[in-house]
């Protein structure tokens, strides 16, 4: 599928100081900018080939925007997005011209959250799944049909379904269609934007399994965006936590879940309701609401809700720093705090 690179790049994707500020406009005839929503504010992380990076955070934290900035669905305000393309080599996606971008996008694909709005209801599966192949001149005619049939089979749908329209499918099946479309061009990187959030519990597991199987089979790299920490823990190798546009912590999954270094990560982990009635621990309940990204607080954005807040946190915004190998935190007190992570559960689920 992919030619062996002579020089093995350590990262498939490297994000440096990515920012996206949406202007807030006001005014009647002549509108003027009265402020900015800092949807993504100075975010840096990397993904190695073949791994899955989880991106978690609460609604409005900028995780979806980050995913779309990488795909260049929007242009970033500033920052670099280095992608190691199998044909073009290492390029900064943020600075690409239209034509090169088209090339790059063949190697980066997006899976959407909503399996209903992401499929054109007026197209058959053949047209939907075949579109990337067709518009990029990869296949047409009967070859296109064969390719689509193969793709449908890969995601667990019958090739005969190719003549059907999306309305004939359930949410889980539609999500499979979305996956098939994303895989059509053999991308290197797939950005999964909450791919299982809209699905029923019983269908979630099927879809997660499918994504994992495909990763193995096609050597895919995932950026897995989700608000569900259990899902992220299950699927990710490393995890990035975001809060109000900022990256607060980035570490290997186990490290982050068992040994968090940021009070927000700790609170987040603690808040997840554990599916075990014998583990009824009182969670760390954060006070107040998530900060408004248009009017964020001074210093560390998390300080008004943080139980370890000191004067410095109110004045000075913490920088992201590596406090242990590959464990990045942006907290002034990361070194001194001992935070509770997830208690290790018995490796088995309650016996059937």
């Amino acid at each position, binding site marked *: 599928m992919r030619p062996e690179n002579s020089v093995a790049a350590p990262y498939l994707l490297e994000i440096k100081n990515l920012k996206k500020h949406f202007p807030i406009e006001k005014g009647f005839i002549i509108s003027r900018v009265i402020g900015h929503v800092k949807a993504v504010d100075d975010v840096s992380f990397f993904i190695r080939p073949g791994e899955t990076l989880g991106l978690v955070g*609460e*609604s409005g934290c900028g995780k979806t925007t980050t995913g779309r900035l990488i795909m260049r669905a929007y242009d970033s305000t500033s920052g670099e997005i280095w992608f190691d393309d199998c044909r073009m080599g290492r390029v900064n996606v943020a600075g690409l011209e239209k034509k090169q971008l088209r090339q790059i996008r063949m190697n980066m694909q997006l899976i959407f959250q909503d399996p209903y709005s992401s499929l054109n209801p007026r197209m058959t599966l053949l047209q939907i799944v075949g579109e990337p192949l067709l518009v990029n001149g990869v296949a047409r005619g009967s070859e296109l049909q064969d390719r689509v049939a193969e793709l449908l089979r890969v995601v667990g749908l019958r090739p005969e379904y190719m003549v059907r329209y999306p309305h004939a499918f*359930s*949410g889980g*099946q539609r999500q499979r269609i979305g996956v098939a479309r994303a895989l059509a061009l053999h991308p290197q990187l797939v950005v999964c934007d909450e791919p299982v959030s809209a699905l*029923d*519990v*019983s*269908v*979630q*597991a*099927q879809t*997660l*399994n499918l994504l*994992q*199987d495909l*990763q*193995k089979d096609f050597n895919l790299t995932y950026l897995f965006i989700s*608000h569900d*920490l*259990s*899902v992220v*823990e*299950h*699927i990710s*190798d490393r995890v990035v936590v975001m809060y109000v546009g900022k990256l607060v912590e980035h570490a290997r*999954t*186990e490290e982050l*879940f068992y040994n968090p270094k940021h009070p927000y990560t700790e*609170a*987040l*982990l*603690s*808040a*997840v*309701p*554990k*599916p*075990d*009635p*014998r*583990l009824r621990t*009182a*969670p*760390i*309940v*954060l006070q*107040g*609401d*998530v900060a408004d990204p248009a009017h964020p607080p001074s210093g560390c954005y998390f300080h008004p809700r943080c139980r370890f807040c000191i004067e410095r946190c109110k004045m000075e915004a913490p920088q992201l720093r590596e406090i242990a190998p590959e464990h990045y935190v942006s907290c002034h007190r990361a070194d001194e705090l001992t935070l509770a992570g*997830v*208690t*290790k*559960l*018995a*490796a088995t*689920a*309650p*016996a*059937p």
Partner: protein
Amino acid sequence: MNESNPLLQIKDLKTYFFLDEGTVKAVDGADLELGTCSTLGVVGESGCGKSVAARSIMQIVAKGGRIVSGEILFHHQLCKPGTDRRLSEKEEVIDLAMLDPQGDKIRSIRGAEISMVFQEPMTSLSPVHTIGNQIGEVISLHQKLDPKQAREKAIAMLDHVGMPLPKRTIDRYPHELSGGMRQRAMIAMALSCHPSLLIADEPTTALDVTTEAQILSLMRKLQDELGMSIMFITHNLGVIAQMADRVAVMYLGKVVEAASVDTLFYKPLHPYTQALMESIPRLGAKKRRGERLASIRGSVPDPYNLPKGCPFHPRCAKRVPNVCDREEPPNLKVDQGHEVRCVLYK
């Protein structure tokens, strides 16, 4: 749970929707029981009828739907206003299923004895009325208070649910509040007349996880303080494990298994419950990289043509050929307080 002291008993409830496209048997023979001052968790996937069952109790089933048969026995504790319900001695049993959905009787129960919190705090509050107006309304309706007293009560209630600056918030409109604050307002409204039963229909599904934790701990606190029962409807097994005393699992309009929360999580019997338990990723249960989850094959069938026999049989890994696809499994009592609808336990 105190079995001798039931608050609500639902027996063989059937609520159907008669639509142009056909009849949807949203609730098709459900049995539920809820004791005083306890929490019943109702868990199930979309379309399993859990919300419709809740609305049947309140007699507010959406257009096209109605209760076809069954009983909803509500043990109405008669006590002087202001005294603790738990101390009342007299009770009156009302079959809510028999009441006229628009009659006086059910309306005197709605909002006063039984109240409800909905999933979407944004759309569940009227966008054009202030919070105070909407809370005060239910107070003055059921407690016959004048507007000023009702307002004071509403402020006190907002304070009680941890709303910051209740005196100012009361004159706010829902869109001026955050999601968590709106849900607090909804809860204040639901609890303002000290109901004996609170039905919470996915109250935290639309909220973020940290807000969810706030609301869940608030509900627990209020339950202790006010001494009410909660019927907690959700699809989230984690929330159920944290909140419920007893759990009923619903699938396609039927309660397939009901047990105490510990039994259900540690000794589930129904294949559907077992599969659900195994299919969710658990925090802290990470095993080797790339390990697969157990999953339930297929998807929830179309409500217009349900499978014959056991509704779960097409997806069931343990189905018995020629049995499960023919006969409807009976509700079996396998243990004290543990019921399951599956032929495997006959």
